[in-house]
Protein backbone atom coordinates (compact mmCIF):
# COMPACT_ATOMS: atom_id res chain seq x y z
CA UNK A 1 0.00 0.00 0.00
CA UNK A 2 2.70 2.44 1.12
CA UNK A 3 4.83 1.63 -1.84
CA UNK A 4 1.86 2.24 -4.05
CA UNK A 5 1.38 5.73 -2.68
CA UNK A 6 5.04 6.61 -3.07
CA UNK A 7 4.89 5.42 -6.64
CA UNK A 8 1.90 7.65 -7.19
CA UNK A 9 3.51 10.77 -5.77
CA UNK A 10 6.64 10.15 -7.76
CA UNK A 11 4.55 9.53 -10.83
CA UNK A 12 2.61 12.74 -10.40
CA UNK A 13 5.81 14.74 -10.04
CA UNK A 14 7.18 13.21 -13.23
CA UNK A 15 3.86 13.80 -14.89
CA UNK A 16 4.05 17.50 -14.14
CA UNK A 17 7.47 17.54 -15.70
CA UNK A 18 6.37 15.60 -18.75
CA UNK A 19 3.40 17.86 -19.23
CA UNK A 20 5.70 20.86 -19.13
CA UNK A 21 7.76 19.29 -21.87
CA UNK A 22 4.69 18.29 -23.85
CA UNK A 23 3.23 21.76 -23.71
CA UNK A 24 6.41 23.51 -24.75
CA UNK A 25 6.89 21.29 -27.78
CA UNK A 26 6.25 23.77 -30.53
CA UNK A 27 5.35 21.75 -33.59
CA UNK A 28 1.67 20.85 -33.68
CA UNK A 29 0.75 17.70 -35.55
CA UNK A 30 -2.31 18.13 -37.75
CA UNK A 31 -3.16 14.42 -37.97
CA UNK A 32 -4.96 13.81 -34.65
CA UNK A 33 -3.99 10.12 -34.46
CA UNK A 34 -0.32 10.90 -35.00
CA UNK A 35 -0.52 13.74 -32.49
CA UNK A 36 -1.99 11.37 -29.84
CA UNK A 37 0.75 8.86 -30.58
CA UNK A 38 3.39 11.59 -30.24
CA UNK A 39 2.00 12.84 -26.93
CA UNK A 40 1.81 9.28 -25.60
CA UNK A 41 5.45 8.65 -26.48
CA UNK A 42 6.44 11.90 -24.79
CA UNK A 43 4.83 10.74 -21.57
CA UNK A 44 6.41 7.30 -21.83
CA UNK A 45 9.86 8.77 -22.38
CA UNK A 46 9.79 11.59 -19.86
CA UNK A 47 7.64 10.18 -17.03
CA UNK A 48 8.01 6.47 -17.79
CA UNK A 49 4.32 6.08 -17.08
CA UNK A 50 1.07 7.12 -18.69
CA UNK A 51 -1.41 9.33 -16.81
CA UNK A 52 -4.12 6.68 -17.21
CA UNK A 53 -1.91 4.19 -15.40
CA UNK A 54 -1.57 6.61 -12.51
CA UNK A 55 -5.33 6.96 -12.20
CA UNK A 56 -5.65 3.17 -12.31
CA UNK A 57 -3.03 2.81 -9.55
CA UNK A 58 -4.97 5.27 -7.43
CA UNK A 59 -8.14 3.30 -8.15
CA UNK A 60 -6.48 0.04 -7.18
CA UNK A 61 -5.58 1.49 -3.83
CA UNK A 62 -9.13 2.74 -3.28
CA UNK A 63 -10.56 -0.61 -4.38
CA UNK A 64 -8.69 -2.62 -1.78
CA UNK A 65 -8.82 -0.13 1.09
CA UNK A 66 -11.32 -0.63 3.92
CA UNK A 67 -13.44 2.48 3.63
CA UNK A 68 -16.81 4.02 4.35
CA UNK A 69 -19.07 3.68 7.42
CA UNK A 70 -18.87 -0.13 7.14
CA UNK A 71 -15.06 -0.14 6.79
CA UNK A 72 -14.92 -2.74 4.05
CA UNK A 73 -13.15 -2.86 0.71
CA UNK A 74 -14.83 -3.16 -2.68
CA UNK A 75 -13.43 -6.66 -3.14
CA UNK A 76 -16.92 -8.16 -2.85
CA UNK A 77 -18.34 -5.90 -5.56
CA UNK A 78 -19.87 -7.98 -8.35
CA UNK A 79 -19.52 -6.43 -11.81
CA UNK A 80 -21.46 -9.24 -13.42
CA UNK A 81 -18.85 -12.00 -13.43
CA UNK A 82 -18.92 -12.75 -9.70
CA UNK A 83 -17.73 -10.90 -6.58
CA UNK A 84 -14.33 -9.31 -7.09
CA UNK A 85 -13.92 -10.73 -10.63
CA UNK A 86 -12.48 -7.83 -12.60
CA UNK A 87 -10.82 -9.59 -15.52
CA UNK A 88 -12.94 -8.60 -18.57
CA UNK A 89 -15.64 -7.00 -16.38
CA UNK A 90 -15.90 -3.85 -18.49
CA UNK A 91 -16.45 -5.82 -21.70
CA UNK A 92 -19.98 -6.89 -20.64
CA UNK A 93 -21.19 -3.60 -19.14
CA UNK A 94 -23.82 -2.12 -19.05
CA UNK A 95 -25.91 -5.08 -17.87
CA UNK A 96 -28.82 -5.90 -15.59
CA UNK A 97 -28.11 -6.50 -11.90
CA UNK A 98 -30.63 -8.42 -9.84
CA UNK A 99 -29.48 -6.90 -6.53
CA UNK A 100 -30.23 -3.31 -7.54
CA UNK A 101 -32.93 -4.36 -10.02
CA UNK A 102 -31.62 -2.11 -12.74
CA UNK A 103 -29.26 -1.88 -15.66
CA UNK A 104 -25.95 -0.30 -14.64
CA UNK A 105 -22.82 0.80 -16.44
CA UNK A 106 -19.39 0.59 -14.83
CA UNK A 107 -19.69 4.01 -13.19
CA UNK A 108 -23.14 3.44 -11.74
CA UNK A 109 -22.14 -0.03 -10.56
CA UNK A 110 -19.18 1.37 -8.65
CA UNK A 111 -21.47 3.89 -6.96
CA UNK A 112 -23.94 1.11 -6.10
CA UNK A 113 -21.17 -0.93 -4.48
CA UNK A 114 -19.86 2.08 -2.55
CA UNK A 115 -23.37 2.64 -1.24
CA UNK A 116 -24.47 -0.94 -0.64
CA UNK A 117 -21.21 -2.50 0.52
CA UNK A 118 -19.31 0.36 2.09
CA UNK A 119 -22.33 2.26 3.41
CA UNK A 120 -21.62 5.63 1.81
CA UNK A 121 -24.61 7.88 1.25
CA UNK A 122 -25.07 8.51 -2.49
CA UNK A 123 -24.31 12.22 -1.99
CA UNK A 124 -21.04 11.37 -0.22
CA UNK A 125 -19.63 9.50 -3.19
CA UNK A 126 -16.81 11.56 -4.67
CA UNK A 127 -16.66 11.84 -8.44
CA UNK A 128 -12.85 11.74 -8.49
CA UNK A 129 -12.81 8.47 -6.57
CA UNK A 130 -15.36 6.92 -8.93
CA UNK A 131 -13.21 7.98 -11.87
CA UNK A 132 -10.07 6.42 -10.41
CA UNK A 133 -11.99 3.22 -9.65
CA UNK A 134 -13.36 3.17 -13.21
CA UNK A 135 -9.79 3.46 -14.50
CA UNK A 136 -8.66 0.55 -12.32
CA UNK A 137 -11.53 -1.81 -13.17
CA UNK A 138 -11.28 -0.90 -16.86
CA UNK A 139 -7.55 -1.64 -16.88
CA UNK A 140 -8.49 -5.31 -16.49
CA UNK A 141 -10.26 -5.26 -19.87
CA UNK A 142 -7.45 -3.75 -21.90
CA UNK A 143 -7.69 -4.61 -25.62
CA UNK A 144 -10.42 -7.21 -25.04
CA UNK A 145 -13.35 -7.71 -27.44
CA UNK A 146 -16.47 -5.73 -26.50
CA UNK A 147 -19.25 -8.09 -25.54
CA UNK A 148 -22.43 -6.15 -24.79
CA UNK A 149 -25.44 -8.16 -25.96
CA UNK A 150 -28.79 -7.05 -24.52
CA UNK A 151 -30.56 -10.24 -23.39
CA UNK A 152 -32.92 -9.63 -20.45
CA UNK A 153 -36.08 -7.58 -21.00
CA UNK A 154 -34.55 -4.79 -18.91
CA UNK A 155 -31.42 -4.73 -21.06
CA UNK A 156 -33.42 -4.72 -24.28
CA UNK A 157 -35.59 -1.89 -22.95
CA UNK A 158 -32.44 0.08 -22.05
CA UNK A 159 -31.02 -0.48 -25.55
CA UNK A 160 -34.27 0.80 -27.12
CA UNK A 161 -34.23 3.81 -24.84
CA UNK A 162 -30.65 4.52 -25.87
CA UNK A 163 -31.53 4.31 -29.54
CA UNK A 164 -34.37 6.77 -29.04
CA UNK A 165 -32.08 9.28 -27.29
CA UNK A 166 -29.49 8.71 -30.02
CA UNK A 167 -31.97 10.13 -32.58
CA UNK A 168 -33.49 12.82 -30.34
CA UNK A 169 -32.91 16.17 -32.09
CA UNK A 170 -32.97 19.15 -29.80
CA UNK A 171 -31.30 22.37 -28.78
CA UNK A 172 -30.45 25.47 -30.76
CA UNK A 173 -27.87 23.50 -32.76
CA UNK A 174 -30.60 21.07 -33.87
CA UNK A 175 -28.38 18.09 -33.09
CA UNK A 176 -28.70 14.45 -32.22
CA UNK A 177 -25.93 11.89 -31.88
CA UNK A 178 -26.89 10.02 -35.03
CA UNK A 179 -26.56 12.88 -37.47
CA UNK A 180 -22.84 13.23 -36.66
CA UNK A 181 -21.94 9.70 -35.59
CA UNK A 182 -24.01 7.83 -38.18
CA UNK A 183 -24.98 9.92 -41.20
CA UNK A 184 -21.60 11.68 -41.40
CA UNK A 185 -19.33 9.08 -39.77
CA UNK A 186 -15.94 9.08 -41.45
CA UNK A 187 -16.02 12.86 -41.93
CA UNK A 188 -14.41 15.43 -39.67
CA UNK A 189 -15.61 18.20 -37.37
CA UNK A 190 -12.67 20.56 -37.61
CA UNK A 191 -9.76 18.12 -37.37
CA UNK A 192 -11.58 15.45 -35.39
CA UNK A 193 -12.61 12.34 -37.28
CA UNK A 194 -16.05 11.10 -36.23
CA UNK A 195 -16.82 7.39 -35.86
CA UNK A 196 -20.04 5.40 -35.76
CA UNK A 197 -20.80 2.83 -33.05
CA UNK A 198 -20.32 0.01 -35.59
CA UNK A 199 -16.85 1.45 -36.24
CA UNK A 200 -16.06 1.22 -32.54
CA UNK A 201 -17.24 4.57 -31.13
CA UNK A 202 -16.85 4.52 -27.32
CA UNK A 203 -14.18 1.80 -27.22
CA UNK A 204 -11.44 3.97 -25.71
CA UNK A 205 -13.11 5.15 -22.49
CA UNK A 206 -12.13 5.77 -19.72
CA UNK A 207 -9.24 7.64 -21.27
CA UNK A 208 -6.75 10.35 -20.45
CA UNK A 209 -7.45 13.31 -22.75
CA UNK A 210 -4.18 15.18 -23.16
CA UNK A 211 -5.95 18.26 -24.54
CA UNK A 212 -7.86 18.58 -21.26
CA UNK A 213 -5.17 16.95 -19.07
CA UNK A 214 -7.90 14.93 -17.35
CA UNK A 215 -9.30 11.45 -17.18
CA UNK A 216 -12.65 11.19 -18.97
CA UNK A 217 -15.02 8.31 -18.36
CA UNK A 218 -17.58 7.40 -21.02
CA UNK A 219 -20.16 9.48 -19.14
CA UNK A 220 -17.77 12.44 -19.20
CA UNK A 221 -17.26 11.96 -22.95
CA UNK A 222 -20.98 11.83 -23.67
CA UNK A 223 -21.47 14.93 -21.50
CA UNK A 224 -18.78 16.67 -23.55
CA UNK A 225 -20.63 15.98 -26.81
CA UNK A 226 -23.91 17.22 -25.34
CA UNK A 227 -22.19 20.39 -24.13
CA UNK A 228 -20.52 21.00 -27.46
CA UNK A 229 -23.93 21.08 -29.17
CA UNK A 230 -25.42 23.38 -26.54
CA UNK A 231 -27.41 20.81 -24.58
CA UNK A 232 -26.98 20.85 -20.82
CA UNK A 233 -25.61 17.37 -20.02
CA UNK A 234 -27.58 14.95 -17.82
CA UNK A 235 -26.66 14.47 -14.15
CA UNK A 236 -23.98 11.82 -13.63
CA UNK A 237 -25.21 8.24 -13.17
CA UNK A 238 -28.63 9.07 -14.64
CA UNK A 239 -30.42 6.88 -17.14
CA UNK A 240 -29.59 8.77 -20.35
CA UNK A 241 -25.89 7.81 -19.94
CA UNK A 242 -26.64 4.18 -19.22
CA UNK A 243 -29.06 3.99 -22.16
CA UNK A 244 -26.69 5.67 -24.65
CA UNK A 245 -23.73 3.55 -23.49
CA UNK A 246 -25.86 0.43 -23.85
CA UNK A 247 -26.81 1.41 -27.39
CA UNK A 248 -23.29 2.40 -28.51
CA UNK A 249 -21.50 -0.57 -26.95
CA UNK A 250 -24.08 -3.09 -28.22
CA UNK A 251 -23.61 -1.66 -31.72
CA UNK A 252 -19.82 -1.71 -31.28
CA UNK A 253 -20.17 -5.37 -30.31
CA UNK A 254 -22.10 -6.06 -33.53
CA UNK A 255 -19.25 -4.37 -35.40
CA UNK A 256 -16.82 -6.81 -33.71
CA UNK A 257 -14.75 -4.12 -32.03
CA UNK A 258 -12.28 -4.35 -29.19
CA UNK A 259 -11.46 -1.96 -26.42
CA UNK A 260 -8.22 -0.04 -26.89
CA UNK A 261 -5.51 -0.03 -24.28
CA UNK A 262 -7.35 0.72 -20.99
CA UNK A 263 -7.42 3.41 -19.77
CA UNK A 264 -7.12 4.93 -23.21
CA UNK A 265 -4.90 7.81 -24.24
CA UNK A 266 -6.48 10.28 -26.61
CA UNK A 267 -6.99 13.90 -27.61
Amino acid sequence: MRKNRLYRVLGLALLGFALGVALTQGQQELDPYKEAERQRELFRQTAGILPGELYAAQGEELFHAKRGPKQVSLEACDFGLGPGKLEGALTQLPRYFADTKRVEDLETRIVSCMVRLQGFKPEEVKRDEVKALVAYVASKSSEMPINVVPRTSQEIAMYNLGRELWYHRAGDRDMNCAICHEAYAGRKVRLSPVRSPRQGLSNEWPAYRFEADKLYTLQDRIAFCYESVGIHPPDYYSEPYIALSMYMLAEATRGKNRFTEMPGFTR
Partner: protein
Amino acid sequence: MKGKRFLLWFTLASLLGVALSQQTPFQQRVSQAIQSGGPEFQKSMQQDPDQALCSQYRDKLPAELVPAFLERQRKLIKYPADGRLMGDWKKGEELFTNPRKGNCYACHTGDPREAGAGNMGPGLVGYGARGTSEAVVKYTYDKIYNAWASMPCSLMYRAGYHGILSPEDTAHIVAFLLDPASPVNANLKR
Protein backbone atom coordinates in the same frame (compact mmCIF):
# COMPACT_ATOMS: atom_id res chain seq x y z
CA MET B 1 -69.33 31.66 -11.24
CA LYS B 2 -68.91 28.19 -9.87
CA GLY B 3 -70.13 26.73 -13.11
CA LYS B 4 -67.55 28.73 -15.04
CA ARG B 5 -64.72 27.59 -12.83
CA PHE B 6 -65.86 24.01 -13.17
CA LEU B 7 -65.90 24.37 -16.92
CA LEU B 8 -62.36 25.73 -16.85
CA TRP B 9 -61.07 22.84 -14.78
CA PHE B 10 -62.97 20.38 -16.87
CA THR B 11 -61.40 21.78 -20.04
CA LEU B 12 -57.92 21.77 -18.51
CA ALA B 13 -58.29 18.22 -17.25
CA SER B 14 -59.51 16.92 -20.57
CA LEU B 15 -56.71 18.73 -22.41
CA LEU B 16 -54.22 17.12 -20.05
CA GLY B 17 -55.89 13.77 -20.65
CA VAL B 18 -55.49 14.20 -24.40
CA ALA B 19 -51.85 15.23 -24.02
CA LEU B 20 -51.09 12.21 -21.87
CA SER B 21 -53.00 9.74 -23.97
CA GLN B 22 -51.10 10.89 -27.06
CA GLN B 23 -47.91 9.52 -25.53
CA THR B 24 -47.39 5.81 -26.04
CA PRO B 25 -46.02 3.86 -23.05
CA PHE B 26 -42.62 3.89 -24.77
CA GLN B 27 -42.72 7.67 -25.22
CA GLN B 28 -43.63 8.04 -21.59
CA ARG B 29 -40.65 5.87 -20.71
CA VAL B 30 -38.39 8.10 -22.82
CA SER B 31 -39.72 11.25 -21.11
CA GLN B 32 -39.13 9.64 -17.75
CA ALA B 33 -35.52 8.82 -18.65
CA ILE B 34 -34.92 12.38 -19.86
CA GLN B 35 -36.43 13.69 -16.63
CA SER B 36 -34.01 11.50 -14.65
CA GLY B 37 -31.14 13.46 -16.25
CA GLY B 38 -32.11 16.54 -14.22
CA PRO B 39 -34.22 19.65 -14.89
CA GLU B 40 -31.64 21.46 -17.02
CA PHE B 41 -31.08 18.47 -19.27
CA GLN B 42 -34.82 18.00 -19.53
CA LYS B 43 -35.24 21.62 -20.56
CA SER B 44 -32.48 21.39 -23.19
CA MET B 45 -34.05 18.26 -24.64
CA GLN B 46 -37.44 19.86 -25.35
CA GLN B 47 -38.24 19.68 -29.05
CA ASP B 48 -40.13 21.85 -31.47
CA PRO B 49 -42.59 19.86 -33.64
CA ASP B 50 -40.22 19.55 -36.59
CA GLN B 51 -37.28 18.40 -34.45
CA ALA B 52 -39.65 15.75 -33.11
CA LEU B 53 -40.63 14.80 -36.66
CA CYS B 54 -36.97 14.42 -37.70
CA SER B 55 -36.32 12.23 -34.65
CA GLN B 56 -39.36 10.10 -35.37
CA TYR B 57 -38.24 9.43 -38.95
CA ARG B 58 -34.55 9.07 -38.07
CA ASP B 59 -33.71 12.22 -40.11
CA LYS B 60 -35.19 10.75 -43.32
CA LEU B 61 -38.63 12.26 -43.85
CA PRO B 62 -41.06 10.32 -46.05
CA ALA B 63 -41.57 12.12 -49.37
CA GLU B 64 -45.22 12.97 -48.66
CA LEU B 65 -44.26 14.99 -45.56
CA VAL B 66 -41.52 17.00 -47.27
CA PRO B 67 -43.50 19.80 -49.00
CA ALA B 68 -45.37 20.85 -45.84
CA PHE B 69 -42.16 20.61 -43.79
CA LEU B 70 -40.30 22.91 -46.21
CA GLU B 71 -43.24 25.31 -46.25
CA ARG B 72 -43.30 25.55 -42.45
CA GLN B 73 -39.56 26.14 -42.33
CA ARG B 74 -39.64 28.79 -45.08
CA LYS B 75 -42.17 30.76 -43.07
CA LEU B 76 -39.67 31.01 -40.22
CA ILE B 77 -37.15 32.98 -42.27
CA LYS B 78 -36.86 36.68 -41.43
CA TYR B 79 -35.06 39.24 -43.57
CA PRO B 80 -33.19 42.45 -42.66
CA ALA B 81 -35.42 45.54 -42.38
CA ASP B 82 -33.54 47.30 -45.19
CA GLY B 83 -33.99 44.28 -47.46
CA ARG B 84 -30.26 43.98 -48.20
CA LEU B 85 -29.27 40.29 -48.11
CA MET B 86 -25.57 40.95 -48.70
CA GLY B 87 -23.75 42.88 -45.99
CA ASP B 88 -20.11 43.46 -45.09
CA TRP B 89 -17.84 40.46 -45.79
CA LYS B 90 -15.35 41.48 -43.07
CA LYS B 91 -18.03 41.32 -40.41
CA GLY B 92 -19.17 38.09 -42.02
CA GLU B 93 -15.72 36.58 -41.67
CA GLU B 94 -15.74 37.10 -37.90
CA LEU B 95 -19.23 35.62 -37.56
CA PHE B 96 -18.36 32.67 -39.82
CA THR B 97 -15.31 31.85 -37.70
CA ASN B 98 -16.63 32.52 -34.18
CA PRO B 99 -17.47 29.16 -32.52
CA ARG B 100 -20.28 30.83 -30.55
CA LYS B 101 -21.81 32.37 -33.65
CA GLY B 102 -21.64 30.72 -37.07
CA ASN B 103 -19.00 28.13 -36.16
CA CYS B 104 -19.04 27.35 -39.86
CA TYR B 105 -15.44 26.03 -40.00
CA ALA B 106 -16.57 23.10 -37.86
CA CYS B 107 -18.11 21.66 -41.04
CA HIS B 108 -16.99 23.75 -44.02
CA THR B 109 -13.88 25.13 -45.63
CA GLY B 110 -14.06 28.87 -46.41
CA ASP B 111 -10.93 31.01 -46.50
CA PRO B 112 -8.47 28.50 -48.00
CA ARG B 113 -5.78 29.70 -45.54
CA GLU B 114 -7.80 28.49 -42.53
CA ALA B 115 -6.11 25.31 -41.27
CA GLY B 116 -8.11 22.39 -39.96
CA ALA B 117 -11.57 23.19 -41.32
CA GLY B 118 -14.06 20.32 -41.07
CA ASN B 119 -15.53 18.46 -44.03
CA MET B 120 -18.99 17.41 -42.90
CA GLY B 121 -20.55 20.00 -45.19
CA PRO B 122 -19.57 20.76 -48.81
CA GLY B 123 -16.41 22.85 -49.22
CA LEU B 124 -17.11 26.57 -49.66
CA VAL B 125 -13.78 27.73 -51.11
CA GLY B 126 -14.58 29.75 -54.24
CA TYR B 127 -18.31 29.75 -53.42
CA GLY B 128 -18.59 33.15 -55.13
CA ALA B 129 -18.10 31.49 -58.52
CA ARG B 130 -21.88 31.24 -58.73
CA GLY B 131 -22.10 35.03 -59.00
CA THR B 132 -24.34 37.44 -57.10
CA SER B 133 -27.65 37.14 -58.90
CA GLU B 134 -30.74 37.69 -56.76
CA ALA B 135 -31.49 33.97 -56.82
CA VAL B 136 -28.00 32.98 -55.63
CA VAL B 137 -27.99 35.61 -52.87
CA LYS B 138 -31.43 34.54 -51.64
CA TYR B 139 -30.59 30.84 -51.78
CA THR B 140 -27.44 31.47 -49.74
CA TYR B 141 -29.23 33.72 -47.25
CA ASP B 142 -32.04 31.23 -46.74
CA LYS B 143 -29.61 28.31 -46.35
CA ILE B 144 -27.68 30.08 -43.59
CA TYR B 145 -30.74 31.48 -41.82
CA ASN B 146 -32.67 28.23 -41.92
CA ALA B 147 -30.96 25.21 -43.48
CA TRP B 148 -34.07 23.08 -42.98
CA ALA B 149 -36.08 25.26 -45.39
CA SER B 150 -34.27 23.61 -48.31
CA MET B 151 -33.13 20.31 -46.76
CA PRO B 152 -35.37 18.70 -44.13
CA CYS B 153 -33.49 17.51 -41.02
CA SER B 154 -30.12 18.64 -42.41
CA LEU B 155 -27.07 18.30 -40.21
CA MET B 156 -26.66 22.05 -40.69
CA TYR B 157 -28.44 23.83 -37.87
CA ARG B 158 -30.99 26.63 -38.25
CA ALA B 159 -28.79 29.48 -37.02
CA GLY B 160 -31.20 32.32 -37.79
CA TYR B 161 -34.33 30.57 -36.58
CA HIS B 162 -32.64 29.87 -33.24
CA GLY B 163 -31.47 33.47 -32.95
CA ILE B 164 -27.76 32.63 -33.02
CA LEU B 165 -27.46 34.83 -36.12
CA SER B 166 -29.64 37.90 -36.62
CA PRO B 167 -30.90 38.72 -40.14
CA GLU B 168 -28.10 41.33 -40.39
CA ASP B 169 -25.47 38.78 -39.24
CA THR B 170 -26.75 36.38 -41.85
CA ALA B 171 -26.38 39.03 -44.57
CA HIS B 172 -22.76 39.65 -43.50
CA ILE B 173 -21.97 35.95 -43.84
CA VAL B 174 -23.64 35.88 -47.26
CA ALA B 175 -21.18 38.62 -48.25
CA PHE B 176 -18.24 36.63 -46.87
CA LEU B 177 -19.24 33.77 -49.20
CA LEU B 178 -20.23 35.77 -52.29
CA ASP B 179 -18.31 39.06 -52.32
CA PRO B 180 -15.54 38.87 -54.94
CA ALA B 181 -13.24 40.72 -52.49
CA SER B 182 -13.67 38.06 -49.77
CA PRO B 183 -10.73 35.67 -49.16
CA VAL B 184 -13.18 32.81 -49.81
CA ASN B 185 -13.02 33.87 -53.46
CA ALA B 186 -9.35 34.89 -53.63
CA ASN B 187 -8.56 32.01 -55.99
CA LEU B 188 -11.26 32.92 -58.52
CA LYS B 189 -10.22 34.66 -61.71
CA ARG B 190 -11.34 38.27 -61.57
